[in-house]
């Protein structure tokens, strides 16, 4: 296998990008500027094919030869882990990094994911030894600053959401959902309401909602959406009953729309003795403009890694603090921080009160708390509100600018994300997937595809507040160009895409059918 880095010299293949556009605008040849051409894309071997178990990139002091006290459990077998020296490690991971797209490289319009700018101040703050180098079980009097930070962040969260309490320990969004649903389950159990086991979940919900409810011992009852993308109130009312434990509703919903009837929904659910879980994944549309507490909710998780910009890190770590109403807060998980006489202390024992239990070994994602508080302090009440407004404006600008060539799924204004269906591609032979892959060749990460499920061939675009108008104008030009190309019959280009990315389309079917989930020493047969 050649190791030589190969530069993809593909400029001559760009002719297609020139047609149909105003040729005075440089950005109408987006592929020329596509980030993938500016890189050396190398085939990078696996560490197992480069390193050896005897090599190491770490120097150690000499061993003393102490007699082992491992109780006869010494490891005698080979582990096989390859080692690399420091320069080899540096090259391997820098080369690999160059095969990734990232928010720092360009628009990352993944709907429902809130890919906004990650301020580097937040990274610096999280690395202060006073936060990064403290142990979760140190004496409380040696970590007063950490407890104060958690308390200060909790105060911001309560004020921004208009809720009386927050559980800080959930490790990510789905973990926060579990926190909220467990609090609901514990509250029902405390009342002896063991007949209340049905949870209403709109069809457009994130998959984590039904999966979480089932883990908490509930059954799921789906509510359909209306033609305007919101909860069908008639269907909801028809499903109400004494056995309803609650509802899990995302707001703004996954179609990017505010649930206009949300206050009435809360009243209806409370009317049958149920609780209202609000999925807070889309809180970026509301911060500073709407407080979920004013909508009648009982629980909602926040994704600090979305709304409050702790980085996504290629899939985590997240952080999912969960706000709770007065009705649910007695059941909050341990540990939590309390303040008395100017001193902070941790309540760690679940047996002493009504707490439903412990969700994780320690106190939650401290590293994310530091980043999120740094983000909140930087923005302030004014900046947070402005960020929300800009996020909603950017999404509406994209929707309005593309509505004549693409097909918005619903009429009217949207919140922080714009949802399109695939009807504009009807008869072209181009599908949502092809359209997404063609965006890669134009230097963009695709939007969220095929979600929510209630819209055919869904394309969910969330630009966030981090994009300038100029950046959005370029993005819109590219999207328009692609839509027109699809309609003009250039199917082949879409089906081949991506051709400028580090890899062509990958065979996901083969990966699932014959899973190869690890490297093994090659056999010689």
């Amino acid at each position, binding site marked *: 296998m050649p190791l030589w880095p190969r530069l993809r010299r593909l400029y001559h293949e760009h002719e297609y990008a020139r047609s149909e556009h105003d040729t005075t605008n440089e950005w109408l040849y987006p592929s020329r500027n596509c980030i993938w051409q500016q890189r050396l894309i190398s085939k990078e071997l696996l560490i197992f094919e480069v390193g050896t178990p005897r090599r190491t990139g770490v120097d150690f002091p000499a061993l003393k030869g*102490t007699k082992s006290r491992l109780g*006869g459990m010494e490891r005698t077998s080979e582990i096989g882990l390859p080692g690399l020296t420091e320069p080899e490690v540096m090259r391997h991971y820098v080369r*690999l990094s160059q095969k990734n797209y990232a928010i720092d490289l360009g628009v990352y319009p993944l709907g429902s994911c809130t890919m906004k700018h990650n301020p580097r101040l937040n990274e610096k703050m999280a690395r202060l030894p006073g936060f990064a180098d403290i142990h979760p079980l140190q004496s409380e009097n040696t970590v007063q600053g950490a407890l104060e930070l958690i308390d200060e962040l909790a105060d911001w969260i309560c004020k921004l959401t208009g809720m009386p309490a927050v559980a800080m320990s959930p490790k990510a969004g789905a973990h926060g959902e579990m926190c909220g649903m467990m609090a609901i389950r514990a509250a029902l159990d405390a009342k002896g309401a063991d007949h209340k086991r049905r949870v209403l979940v709109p069809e457009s919900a994130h998959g984590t909602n039904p999966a979480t409810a089932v883990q908490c011992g509930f059954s799921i009852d789906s509510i359909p959406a209306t033609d305007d993308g919101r909860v069908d109130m008639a269907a909801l009312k028809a499903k109400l009953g004494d056995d309803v434990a609650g509802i899990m509703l995302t707001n703004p919903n996954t179609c990017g729309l505010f649930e206009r009837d949300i206050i009435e929904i809360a009243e209806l659910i409370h009317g049958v003795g149920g609780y209202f879980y609000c999925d807070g994944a889309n809180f970026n549309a509301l911060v500073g403009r709407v407080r979920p507490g004013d*909508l009648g909710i009982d629980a909602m998780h926040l994704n600090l890694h979305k709304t409050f910009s702790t980085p996504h*890190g290629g*899939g985590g770590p997240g952080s999912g603090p969960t706000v709770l109403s007065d009705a649910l807060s007695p059941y909050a998980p341990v540990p939590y921080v309390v303040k008395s006489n100017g001193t902070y202390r941790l309540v760690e024992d679940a047996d002493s009160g009504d707490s439903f239990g412990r*969700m994780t070994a*320690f106190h939650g994602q401290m590293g994310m708390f530091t980043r999120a508080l740094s983000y909140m302090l930087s923005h302030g009440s004014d900046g947070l509100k402005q960020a929300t407004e800009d996020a909603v404006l950017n999404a509406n600008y994209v929707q309005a600018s593309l509505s004549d060539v693409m097909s918005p799924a619903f009429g009217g204004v949207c919140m922080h994300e714009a949802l399109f269906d695939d009807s504009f591609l009807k008869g072209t032979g181009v599908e949502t997937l092809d359209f997404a892959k063609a965006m890669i060749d134009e230097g963009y990460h695709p939007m969220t595809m095929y979600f929510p499920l209630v819209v055919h061939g869904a394309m969910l675009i969330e630009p966030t507040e981090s994009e300038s108008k100029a950046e959005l104008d370029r993005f819109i030009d590219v999207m328009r160009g692609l839509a027109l190309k699809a309609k003009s019959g250039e199917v082949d280009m879409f089906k081949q895409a991506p051709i400028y990315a580090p890899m062509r389309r990958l065979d996901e079917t083969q990966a699932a059918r014959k899973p190869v*989930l690890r490297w093994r020493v090659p056999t010689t047969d």
Partner: protein
Amino acid sequence: MRYLPLNNNDRAAMLDVVGVKSIDGLFEDVPEAARLDSLIDVPLHKTESEVDGHLTALAAKNRAAGAGPFFIGAGAYRHHIPATVDHLIQRSEFLTAYTPYQPEISQGTLQVLFEFQTQVAMLTGMDVANASMYDGSTACGEAVLMACRVKRRKKVFVASGVHPHYTAVCKNTSQYQNIDLRVADCAPNCDAGILNGLDKDTAAIIVQSPNVFGEVIDLAPYAEAAHEVGALLIAVFTEPVALGAIKSPGEMGADIVVGEGQSLGVGLNYGGPYVGLFAVAQKLVRQMPGRVCGETVDANGERGYVLTLSTREQHIRREKATSNICTNSGLCTVAFSIHMSLLGEAGLRTLATLNHEKACQLADALGAIDGVELVTESFFNEFTLRLTKPAKDVVEAMVAKNVLGGLPAARLMDGQDDLLIVCATETNSDADINAFVAALTEALS
């Protein structure tokens, strides 16, 4: 505001295109009763240096582990992390990417995950591993659910010595699924009496080694007893460096191995984010929770990687998913994997031996103090002492001398007030150990 690129001219022009008069026009779906007409009562925006000052002042109120003698473990361990690790995970392309849903432009993250999975499988002596969980404790909770799914049984035993917070998470995770969790009393040198309770309704037994007291446990008898009744052995560890010195759980017959990976690449972070490791035998792969990365080829036949087996996951299976988990510990897996690549087998073994030697040195030094009894015979880098005074008071007295001298067992469990759990790693110097000995001697006198 330094993070917001739009200016008022942009906003006006964009509102024009949208066709609304003011920004309020975009929020008309919000019920009037819920529209805020003033700013929320939190401070206004701050400059970068103001925020820096505020948070630096908070950080200064904490006693960083590196600011003096430090000997706490019990689920989180202080090791030296090579500078290369933190530099690399701050690359924009790793730091600011999303979950690799578009594999053509996510091969960096995906290949690291494939390498990570292989490293975890090798380390634990198992066939395959997933792309990480939130942390060791939540991985342990998921293992309980998985074992009950696989075995279609509802009883799970927790052996003595499993970290009580892990047990608490298992209880919590399984409490609404009619799972019968039988927990042995947590005490040092506990025998394997719990094995007598295993029966044909048992889905699994959970055993930790080294356990919360630092004891190294032979898992083989537990595996044998579990397999005899058709149950699974879930092996737990909180210190991955130990696996450079002791037999892997896979070698001793574990079916599911879960652990905390924080020691490698991640740092203490006051408890999070950490990285949960989850490895299983090949035959259990399709019941494993969490994301998994697999090898495949692209349209040109070149080797590449994708997230796979997603039909187990919530975004496809919804209420029938193996777990509700979505986010994993992405960037922490990168850090773990880089640190492990730097170490390699030779480095890991040396690091493990260094830790063990430090712990032996510390155990000898502390064990010689009047009023101290070493209760852990075999250990790796952590052991338990019985003191003649309540450990909590002793620890507080040592804090006053700027020595963070271990963890009172009572913080984790009831009825062990005289036990102190102590950890030594390669980061502890001889001077640290001398300071600890002096502080403990004084506190006990």
